[in-house]
């Protein structure tokens, strides 16, 4: 059993589990949308005193912060007990291309060149991670949601705005991957 869980899960099972989580939250009278937490945290930190956008009753969002806390714990549990003993099965083309960009495929989830503690000795790493985070935070609030809120919850409810947002996610993602990453990595 544990061996089965330690394997990477097939896409259809993963997709099913994501819907299950969305339905649990719906059944509890909530909705599945992760990036709202970023706004809530800004509000908790007192941003509401300066900026109206953050002046709301963040306590009503406590359930989502608990979900966030759980997701960190879930990541930790996965690392301790459920991590894949084998290398990630990345497509050979991707591995070869990344090599050309100076990113070595290490078999793990994320490249050392960007995410190892050692990479922090280069100011460029700080800049890329911080800038990427800013784009995600700014963009998700501007678009009114992220992958969970738009691509999963919104598309499930057949919302045209969510489809437009997801098309935007892809325009941005393709621009970054095809045109920008080759210059900045």
């Amino acid at each position, binding site marked *: 059993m544990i061996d089965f869980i330690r394997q990477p899960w097939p896409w259809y099972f993963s997709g099913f589990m994501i819907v299950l989580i969305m339905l649990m939250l719906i059944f509890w009278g909530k909705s599945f949308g992760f990036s709202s937490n970023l706004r809530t945290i800004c509000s908790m930190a007192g941003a509401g005193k300066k900026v109206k956008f953050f002046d709301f009753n963040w306590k009503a969002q406590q359930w989502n912060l608990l979900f966030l806390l759980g997701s960190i714990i879930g990541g930790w*549990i996965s690392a301790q007990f459920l991590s894949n003993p084998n290398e990630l099965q990345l497509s050979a083309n991707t591995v070869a291309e990344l090599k050309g960009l100076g990113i070595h495929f290490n078999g793990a989830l994320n490249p050392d060149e960007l995410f190892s503690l050692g990479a922090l000795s280069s100011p460029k790493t700080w800049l890329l991670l911080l800038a990427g985070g800013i784009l*995600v*935070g700014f*963009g998700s609030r501007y*678009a009114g949601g*992220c*992958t969970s809120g738009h691509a999963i919850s919104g598309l499930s409810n057949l919302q045209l705005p969510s489809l437009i947002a997801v098309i*935007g*996610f892809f325009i941005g993602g393709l621009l970054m991957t095809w045109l920008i990453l080759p210059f900045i990595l």
Partner: protein
Amino acid sequence: MKSIKYILAGILFGIVMIKSEAVSWFRIYEMFRFQSFQMYGIIGTAVVLGAISVFLIKKMNWKDASQLPIVFKDKERPYTRYLIGGTIFGLGWALTGACPGPMFVNLGYGYLTMAIVIIGALLGTFLYGLIKDKLPH
């Protein structure tokens, strides 16, 4: 005690994100290069099953756990914000390989450098709040 269930749901979410490899920078790069079906399969399955579930919930007028009707809010028009905001989000998603959920899951998994991405995301959110009235929506 009522709140424990949200922590448990979050734990399940974190495990699903790791086991599906949707938190992987490599997988996101591979997706945007169209070199694997994995991520499309995950999102596609979730959307199809999700749409069927939402349709049934509406059709059958299902109630939630506190016996209240389940309502799905429609997203507001106009659409400019979704396209521009979505594009900005996509740039960051492909750069860091992480959307908001996976940032925190990765941090828990042991990628401590994700804290920098999270700080960036909070700054970006704050920046949006600061200048939102000047932006086209």
